[in-house]
Every structure is written in structure tokens, then in C-alpha cells.
């Protein structure tokens, strides 16, 4: 097969380039999941604890949204799946999508694909090599998860099913990214498409599981859970993700045959020969650079908000149907609907923080790409350039959070016929803005003082996400929880409003930004 000539060499190139990155991804995903498995095993060791867990979460729509249908509760294996499986799918999916785009479209845009294709390398070799390596990474995650789960005493068959579901979902996401990489000319656009698909899979499954509507079968993430690890495994379901993954790869390969190197399916049209009035300063440039991504994230989070808002009503139904659950929430003193929305708000705030970091870390990539140099060669002070990106990050993330809250509130207001919900739920998401700004401050400080370490802020977000999503379940000590700015945010509407912690977060963010700008003024520009 001549179109595959050189695949072996390309595999070696990918492995060589990512000899650090690949093991880090695999080990990070496994460590994230296995640490949670270990905590679950120690927390729910006795049958009594497992029963009370099952009562608390089994029919709780908040928990179902985040954890899945909960097949097989209260067995220990089912609790493990409930706590870690969705998180694992998201992590494995992100790993697969980002790695595939990195080795396909990103290489192509950088012009390196052209160099390689001019050699004795087939048209499909690059894509197949990237997919082979990513498949290997997923298999490594699966093998380590299997070994770890069995070592911790979980049943072998169930552990195998859980590992297989992780691998299968990772492969689907690799296929999705392979297609996305053919569609857009821009690696950022390709990763954006793939991550949007991941989000869609999550939302379809979450709404389907909460509403028990069968919508989950429209989502590969739903298929992965439908395999039912530790609960009378349905191995036949595995066919679905494998067929879809193979189909996506075949589609991507066919698309490669139909397009030019460097081109996407959407071809570039001529643009303006002169700049508009808006594009006349660093702020105008920053807005221009981020506006497409802002529109995408804003639309995505508005839809996610609408999705959560529209299931809020069925939460009430579920509670009235289940006296145990009603008693549980009556005892905790908050309404179930409100705690559902509080969790949804924190979840959407984490996603909004992803947008904020994407914008803020752009400062570093502009510098390393050499695009900062010609700008600073003009009469633009460094601080004004950096402040432009930071301002877009701060305002943009606030807009994104506001729209997520608006979606949540609008959907719930329409369903409950209560217009007051719009403002109340918009506030529930918007209240996280200071926490997100704090993360922007972390980027600013790193960029000014430790520019090479800017990427570490994604690890900071991952830790925050871990603490928000699993901190309570794992009963982590308070000081650990306090590390996350999200922890200091009042969880509206379940908790009472208090401005004190928010003002403190704003102050921390301001100090971090100021430190970053001072550092930027004093340091050398690096290329």
C-alpha cells in the first residue's frame, strides 16, 4: 500500500517528539483515576457505607448527571464506575483528541508535513502513525487501569470492562479528532471541534441518563457506560464504539485523499485589503484573535446551560417520586433542585475557566511564535499589549459564564413559569467569575516571571477540577480544598451569597496580574 509507505518511520518520529509528553499524559490520566479508585475503596469499605452511598446518589439527578446511570449499585465496583468512569472518559478523550491534532493538523500548518511528504512518505502515513501512537497510549491507559484495579482487589472481569470502555471511548475521540483535523486549516479549530464533540457526547449522555430517555444511546460516552462494568457486563456494546471509531478513521483517510496538503475542507477566501477601524491597537488585535473562539465557547456554554436548565424540572419529579431522597435533602436543609444547579454552575465555571486560560496563555504562544517582536517594535508598551489579552480573558470569560447562567436560568424559568429564576441562576454561574479571574492572574504572573512555565496553569485548572468534582466525595482535608479558588466561591443558589471571599479572590487576581506585568517589564523577550 503505497499511501502507507513510511508509516513506521513516522511512528518513530511521533514517539521521539513526544517521548516525555506521552508518558506524562498516560501516567497523569492513570494517576488521576487510580487515586480516586483507591479513595473510593477505602471510603466505602463496609456494606453499610456502600448502601447509604447508593441511597444518597442512586436516584440523585445531580449525581447521575456527573456519574452515569449507576448500574449495579451498591457493589463496590459500581461505586468506582460511578465516581471515576465519566471523568476517565473525558480525560482519555482529551488526551486522544489533543495528541491526534498535535501530530496531524498542527504539523501540517507548521509546514513540516510538506517537508516529510516530499520524501518517501505516503499520503496516509502521517495520520495512521498518529492514530497508531494514540491507540497505543489508550491501550497503555487501559492496561495500567486494569492492573491497578485488580491489584487493589476489584473483580478482574469488571476491571477489564472498565478498562475496555476507557480504551474504546479514547479510540472514538481519536477518530473524531482525525476527521476534525481534515476539516479546518487551523489546529486550534480542529481541537475546538473535537472538544466540542466531547462536550456534546457528555451532554447527550448526562441529559439522557437524568431523564432516562434513551438519549444516552446517541452518545459514545453513553455506550461506554452501557458496557456496565462490574454489573453484568454487556460486552456486545463494545462493537458500537469500535465500529464508529473505524468509520471515523476511514472517513478521515478518505478526506486526506480529497484535499491538498495544508488546505482544509473549508477553503480560505480573500479578506479585507485594508484594516477596519477596530483593528488599530493591541486591544483591537486581541479581540480579533479571540473573537471566533469566544463565539464558539459562548454558544457551547449557552447550550450546556440550556441543557442543564431543562432537566432541572425533572429533578423535582424524581424527588417527589422517591421519599428516601426527599428525606435526605430535607435533612441537609437545601432544595435538591438548588443543589443540582449549584453543581451544574461549578461544572460550567470550570469549562469557562478553560476558555479564560486559552485566551491568557495565548500571550506566551504569541511570544514564542515570534509575533510579539514586530508588535513591540512599534510604539506599543509591553504592559498594554499584555493587558489587552488579559482584558479579553477577563471580560470574555465573564461573558461566557454569564451566558451559561443565562441558559440555565432561561430554560428553568420557562419550565417553571418563574421569570425570577433567570437572574437567580445567572448569578449562580457568574459568581464564579472572580475564581476564574484568579486563574487568569496565575497565567499573568507566570508569563511575567516564569514564562517557560505558563503551560503549568493547565495543571492548576486540572487540580481545581479534581477538587470541585471529587474533593467532597473523597473527603479531602480542608486545607487541600482551600487551594482551589472555586472552593472560596459561594455555591449559589444552594448557599447564601457573601461578598467577602469574592473580594478576596479579586484582590488575589489583581496582585497576580500586577506581579506579572512588572515581571514582563523587566525580562528579556524570548523567541
Amino acid at each position: 500500500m503505497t499511501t502507507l509507505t513510511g508509516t513506521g518511520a513516522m511512528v518513530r518520529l511521533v514517539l521521539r517528539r513526544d517521548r516525555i509528553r506521552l508518558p506524562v499524559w498516560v501516567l497523569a490520566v492513570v494517576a488521576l483515576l487510580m487515586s480516586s479508585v483507591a479513595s473510593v475503596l477505602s471510603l466505602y469499605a463496609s456494606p453499610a457505607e456502600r448502601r447509604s452511598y447508593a441511597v444518597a446518589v442512586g436516584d440523585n439527578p445531580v449525581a447521575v448527571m456527573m456519574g452515569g446511570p449507576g448500574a449495579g449499585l451498591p457493589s463496590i465496583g459500581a461505586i468506582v464506575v460511578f465516581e471515576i468512569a465519566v471523568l476517565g472518559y473525558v480525560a482519555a478523550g482529551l488526551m486522544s483528541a489533543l495528541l491526534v491534532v498535535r501530530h496531524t493538523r498542527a504539523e501540517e500548518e507548521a509546514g513540516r508535513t510538506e517537508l516529510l511528504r516530499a520524501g518517501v512518505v505516503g499520503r496516509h502515513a502521517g495520520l495512521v502513525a498518529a492514530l497508531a501512537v494514540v491507540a497505543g497510549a489508550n491501550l497503555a491507559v487501559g492496561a495500567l487501569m486494569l492492573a491497578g484495579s485488580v491489584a487493589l482487589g476489584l473483580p478482574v472481569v469488571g476491571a477489564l470492562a472498565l478498562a475496555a470502555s476507557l480504551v474504546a471511548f479514547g479510540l472514538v475521540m481519536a477518530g473524531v479528532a482525525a476527521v476534525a483535523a481534515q476539516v479546518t486549516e487551523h489546529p486550534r479549530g480542529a481541537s475546538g471541534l473535537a472538544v466540542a464533540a466531547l462536550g456534546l457526547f457528555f451532554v447527550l449522555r448526562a441529559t439522557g441518563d437524568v431523564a432516562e430517555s434513551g438519549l444516552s444511546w446517541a452518545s459514545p460516552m453513553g455506550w461506554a457506560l452501557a458496557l456496565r462494568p462490574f454489573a453484568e457486563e454487556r460486552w456486545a456494546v463494545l462493537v458500537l464504539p469500535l465500529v464508529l471509531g473505524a468509520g471515523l478513521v476511514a472517513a478521515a483517510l478518505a478526506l486526506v485523499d480529497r484535499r491538498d496538503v495544508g488546505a482544509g475542507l473549508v477553503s480560505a477566501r480573500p479578506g479585507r485589503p485594508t484594516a477596519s477601524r477596530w483593528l488599530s491597537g493591541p486591544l483591537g488585535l486581541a479581540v480579533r484573535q479571540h473573537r471566533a473562539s469566544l463565539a464558539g465557547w459562548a454558544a457551547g456554554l449557552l447550550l450546556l446551560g440550556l441543557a442543564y436548565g431543562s432537566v432541572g424540572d425533572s429533578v423535582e419529579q424524581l424527588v417527589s417520586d422517591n421519599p428516601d431522597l426527599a428525606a435526605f435533602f430535607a435533612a441537609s436543609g437545601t432544595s435538591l433542585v438548588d443543589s443540582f444547579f449549584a453543581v451544574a454552575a461549578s461544572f460550567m465555571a470550570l469549562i469557562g475557566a478553560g476558555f479564560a486560560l486559552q485566551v491568557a496563555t495565548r500571550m506566551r504562544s504569541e511570544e514564542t511564535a515570534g509575533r510579539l517582536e514586530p508588535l513591540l517594535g512599534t510604539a506599543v508598551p509591553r504592559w498594554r499589549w499584555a493587558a489587552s489579552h488579559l482584558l479579553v480573558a477577563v471580560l470574555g470569560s465573564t461573558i461566557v459564564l454569564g451566558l451559561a447562567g443565562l441558559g440555565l436560568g432561561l430554560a428553568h424559568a420557562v419550565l417553571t413559569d418563574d421569570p425570577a429564576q433567570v437572574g437567580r441562576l445567572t448569578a449562580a454561574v457568574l459568581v464564579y467569575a472572580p475564581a476564574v479571574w484568579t486563574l487568569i492572574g496565575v497565567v499573568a504572573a507566570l508569563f511575567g516571571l516564569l514564562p517557560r512555565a505558563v503551560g503549568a496553569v493547565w495543571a492548576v485548572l486540572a487540580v481545581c477540577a479534581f477538587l470541585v468534582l471529587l474533593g467532597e466525595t473523597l473527603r479531602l482535608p480542608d486545607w487541600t480544598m482551600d487551594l482551589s479558588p472555586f472552593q472560596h466561591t459561594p455555591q449559589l443558589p444552594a448557599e447564601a451569597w457573601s461578598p467577602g471571599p469574592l473580594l478576596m479572590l479579586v484582590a488575589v487576581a489583581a496582585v497576580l496580574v500586577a506581579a506579572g506585568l512588572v515581571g514582563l517589564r523587566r525580562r528579556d523577550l524570548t523567541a
Partner: protein
Amino acid sequence: MCTFEAVASAISVSGLVKTFGSTRALDGLDLEIAPGEVHGFLGPNGSGKSTTIRVLLGLLRADEGSARLLDGDPWHDAVALHRRLAYVPGDVSLWPNLTGGEVIDLLGRLRGGIDTQRRDDLLKRFDLDPAKKARSYSKGNRQKVALVAGLASDAELLLLDEPTSGLDPLMEVVFQDCILEAKDEGRTVLLSSHILAEVESLCDRVSIIRLGRTVQSGTLSELRHLTRTSLAVETVRPVTGLDQLPGVHDLATDGGRVRFDVDTASLDTAVRHLSGFGIRALTSNPPTLEELFLRHYGDEVEQPDQPDQPDNPGRHRSDRQPV
């Protein structure tokens, strides 16, 4: 034409040192450029040309030495100085989703304004389509975007870092015309390059740097006396005694034909000597900077006569690497 604020010196750099970790990128570099001068800044790759320009732009902070730009401090007065200069990088990277026209306008506005008449004129001369996205430009076209943005400004100082590295010969001619026009308008130009013909036809003075240090600086005629002329002569009678003359190198005799190089200082003596044998034909190749350049960065041909060149302060024999 244009009148610029009178400055004592456009660029004045002395003893500049810049280290990156254990690498000494600049090692006591000196550079003096008078207002209105077109100054060639020559050196091989990695000799510190771009680092010098980045220090002059206030993008890097010098470790030692002093640098003055248009009577200002390039680090502290960066923004004020940048209003008066235009910079064209050697390796131009642009925002992929902006068109060339948008980038040109943006960079011009960031400097404080752009002369649209001049911009359109330059676009036409450089044959650049401003409606294309930067993503689809070739290296040469990206270079043109940066050149048009720089040249369309009314800056009194142009800092050009290997500005023609991606241009075809036709466009290089356009570029040279533009630089000569800039000179007529009284602008100062720092032109870093390793294309010697370009520097030779444009520059009033030249500085040659190597390993972060200035090895030679002066006008072209000052530098030319350090160079040699190549002569090829056909004579009636076989030439003898030429190898006894001072300053003659690489002598090759082939019947009635003689080829040799001669130091420009000894040219007169050599030609007088030759005329005694009845010159039938004589071709001479003028001294080029090319040769001067080669001799600074390693040319085994001229090594044997190095000791008898005491008037050549720029040569650092110990630095020379064998070719």
C-alpha cells in the same frame, strides 16, 4: 525632503555584552551610525546581528556596555523611540487569520499612523496582494508584508534584519530603490545582511561582526584597501619576477597567460612590472566585499601572508576557523 529631529548620532553602541546562559551572544560589540547614513551590518549566521538589533529595540536588556538610539535609551525609552523607527524582522511570522493588508495597517497604526498613499504605492511596487490571509503567504510574501509596513512609515530610522532573505532578484531591485529613496529623504538605515552585493550597492559604511564582536568598521573605500584585485594578463613575452613583488598572491602561469591576486596597495607596482613584458590583454576583477568577508571568516588562501599585514587591525588570526 523630510526633516527629522537633529540627533548627534543615530545609533551608538559600545562594549555591548549579552549572555544567554553560558553563551556569550554579544561580546563587547561596538557600532556607530551617523544620522542619514545607510549602514551595512555584516556577519555570518549566529554572529550576533539579530541580538544586537533586539537590544536596540529594547526587547533584550544588555548585560554590559552602553547602547544609545536616537539619543535615547533603547530599554527605558523603548516606546517613545519606536514611534521614530521601523523594524523589519528577518524571519517574519504573521497572524494567520489576518490579511496582509490588515497586518500592514495594524503595524502602521501601532506606530502612530500610516501614509495610505505610500502604502498603496509600495504594495504595487512589491506586487503584493493585500487581500490574502497571512496563512497563505509564502516566505517572500510575508517578508514583503513586513517591508511594506516598515517602509510605509515615516520613521527616521529603519532597522532591517536581513530584510531580503525571501525576495526574488526582481524584488530585491525594488527593495534597493526603496532604500535609496529612504536615504534621499534623510532617513538612517541599519541593514543587516549576509548578501554582500546588496550592502555594497547601498551602504555608506559597513560594520563587520563576528562572534559578537565588531571586527571591522569603516567606509567601503576604507575597507577596500584591505582587499585584493584579481588580474588575468596575456603578455608578449613570458612574465618573470612577479613572485618577487610584494603583495602578489596565488600566482599561476600558463604559457603567455598569468593569473594572480594582488593587494590593492601593490596594484600599481604590479601593473608597471607587467607592462615591461608587453601586455596583450588584461582583465581585472574589482575587489568585492565578498572577498573581504571571506577573509574574515576563514579563507585558508590568505593565511600564509597574515604576518606581513600589520595594517589590518580587524583580522583575528586566532579566531579563524579552518575551512
